């Protein structure tokens, strides 16, 4: 990919590629202080995929942007610690972050069609970060872009470079967005609901593509999604978020087999399964997430939880370890424990749950 003249050489570290510790991201709005991300911690080992799952409004998109530092310039507070490859990202001025953005950390956004500038040829949109970060010449960048387009599965890449975004379908646009995101060979790729507006088959292709690229390029990836079923087969670890907090975190297999948090259970149940009958009504989670500017005391999921007991509304459950040390969850009456079964039984008897 040509000689690289990077402004900042990121040194490889032995520890995790990304360490997030007690990250908080608050927005000042007219309605009050919106606590979109409210104390989130996690680690990401190089080469692995982490999925962040939650309903819309749970703060997962803000979390992914906050990790990167890609936030509005005003009325935002971002506190805590984000260490990426040994660099501290919180408190770093934006011009320093910019050297990492697009180069070491890249992002794929939700809507591929609106993420591409409609009046700029895709060739330039793909090559601009190469020219900016790597300092490639025009022809070098064009050659690189051709290779990138080919690697994301776009035929006749030389000609397509001259096309405008509206000449491509949504799925093709997302491939282009991905190509431009991975152009500089980032170590970390954040994909924020990369398949939302796409057909199911196209969505699967895009996720497969991301997975393949991740293996080929040995990237780490954070995959944000509202669909636990979609990320289940494509991630090493999963974080479940609710109301700005991590409520359960585990290696994917553990999370699916040994679910502890009632919210995770509810998310799993609301996904359709092949084994279900054709007209089976899917269980939904009653109610709506709490107002992010005014969280209730105690567990934030309590009001919608089938297991909730009086204690849940008073005391906030801390994250505690499960059966394996990598598994943590925040619940007083966890699923699959005698405590939890008892609480559920109690609620059923009281008629609170049907």
């Amino acid at each position, binding site marked *: 990919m040509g000689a690289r003249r990077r402004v900042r050489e990121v040194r490889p570290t032995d520890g995790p590629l990304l360490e997030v510790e007690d990250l908080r991201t608050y927005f000042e709005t007219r309605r009050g202080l919106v606590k979109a991300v409210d104390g989130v911690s996690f680690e990401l080992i190089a080469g692995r995929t982490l999925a962040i799952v939650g309903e819309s409004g749970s703060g997962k998109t803000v979390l992914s942007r906050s990790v990167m530092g890609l936030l509005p310039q005003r009325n935002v507070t971002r506190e805590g610690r984000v260490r990426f490859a040994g660099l501290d990202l919180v408190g770093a001025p934006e011009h320093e972050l910019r050297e990492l*953005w697009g180069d070491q950390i890249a*992002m794929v956004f939700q809507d591929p069609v609106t993420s591409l500038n409609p*009046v*700029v040829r895709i060739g330039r949109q793909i090559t601009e970060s190469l020219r900016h970060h790597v300092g490639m010449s025009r022809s070098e960048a064009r050659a690189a872009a051709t290779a990138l387009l080919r690697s994301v599965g776009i035929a006749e890449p030389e000609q397509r470079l001259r096309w*405008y975004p509206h000449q491509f379908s949504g799925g093709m646009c997302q491939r282009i967005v991905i190509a*431009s*995101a991975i152009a500089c060979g980032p170590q970390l790729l954040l994909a924020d609901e990369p398949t939302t507006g796409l057909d199911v088959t196209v969505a699967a292709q895009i996720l497969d593509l991301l997975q393949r690229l991740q293996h080929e390029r040995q990237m780490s990836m954070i995959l944000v999604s509202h669909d636990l079923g979609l990320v289940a087969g494509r991630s090493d670890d999963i974080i479940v978020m609710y109301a700005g907090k991590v409520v359960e975190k585990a290696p994917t297999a553990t999370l699916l087999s040994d679910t502890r948090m009632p919210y995770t259970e509810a998310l799993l149940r609301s996904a359709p399964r092949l084994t279900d009958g054709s007209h089976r009504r899917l269980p939904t989670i009653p109610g709506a997430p709490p107002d992010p500017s005014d969280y209730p005391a105690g567990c934030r999921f309590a009001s919608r939880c089938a297991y909730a007991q009086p204690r849940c509304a008073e005391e906030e459950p801390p994250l505690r370890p499960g059966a394996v040390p990598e598994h943590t969850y925040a619940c007083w009456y966890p699923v699959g424990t005698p405590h939890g079964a008892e609480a559920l039984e109690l609620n059923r008897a009281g008629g609170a749950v049907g």
Partner: protein
Amino acid sequence: MVALRRVGEGLVTLFLVALVTYFFTSKMPGNEAAVICGPSGPACIRHETALLYLNHPFFARFFHWLGELFQGHLGLTLAPPIPISTVLLAAYPITLELIIYSQVIAIVVAIPAAMYGALRANRMFDKVSTAASFATLSLPNFIVGPLLVLIFAVKLAWFPGPASNVPSLWSDPGQNLYVMFLPSLTLAVGSIAVYQRLLRADMIATLEEDYILMARAKGLSTARILFRHALRPSTFSTMTVGGVQIGGLIAGAIIAETVFSLHGLGSVLTAAVAAKDLPTVQAVTIIVAVFYILCNLLIDFLYTLIDPRGRRGRRA
């Protein structure tokens, strides 16, 4: 295909414009021939009447006139009888320069102002510049012009005032641009306000777009994002108005030429109207209308260049 239709519509409009112009300017009170001949005898009047097709029906006269127009025969001014084409050729560079110069000034001022305002929307600079634009839009250029003269020519004496000698742009560009600065600024003030408002509003909308966030995520600098990604999609309204602005600019040029005693098309037209010099009024009107329609066609064309989708049209 669409372009062809536009051109066709333009031609039809042009023809009708010519017809209307001729209609208005040929049925003037007072026989044209009599005005030309003045105290000369009936022989002169007969001669001129035949020459000008005055004894023919309206449409015959009109087509005769149109035919002459196509061959570049614009006729003679009333007094002294000079070929109108000579007068116009001498006058048009001033007007054209005024218009182009003013737009350069307007763009140079308005784009940075709008960008900065949009970037820090609703903060001090933005509020002040937006209010200033609003006020400026209520300031007709026949007020702006004299005020500029008062401040920059009379009081501060930074620039030459009215009736200054304008050297040719080609022989002495520095002096020419210096002398033409205040007249052009007179026209530019209104344009700055219009462009600032439109660009700022569109720019604020554009900056909310996902592709701007994506450009940020690529690590591009703010300046690069603004100029490479945000500017072009934010110019649609401005372009649309730009076409109509040209009409306002022609009007503004008439005013500015009067304020600064410049000898452009505007002063030719005002003098002709005051002297009831119909052939000249006809000629200037037609030329201005042609220019105006051509500019609008050009802008339609530019529009498709700027917006590759071509579906936003000019009515976004």
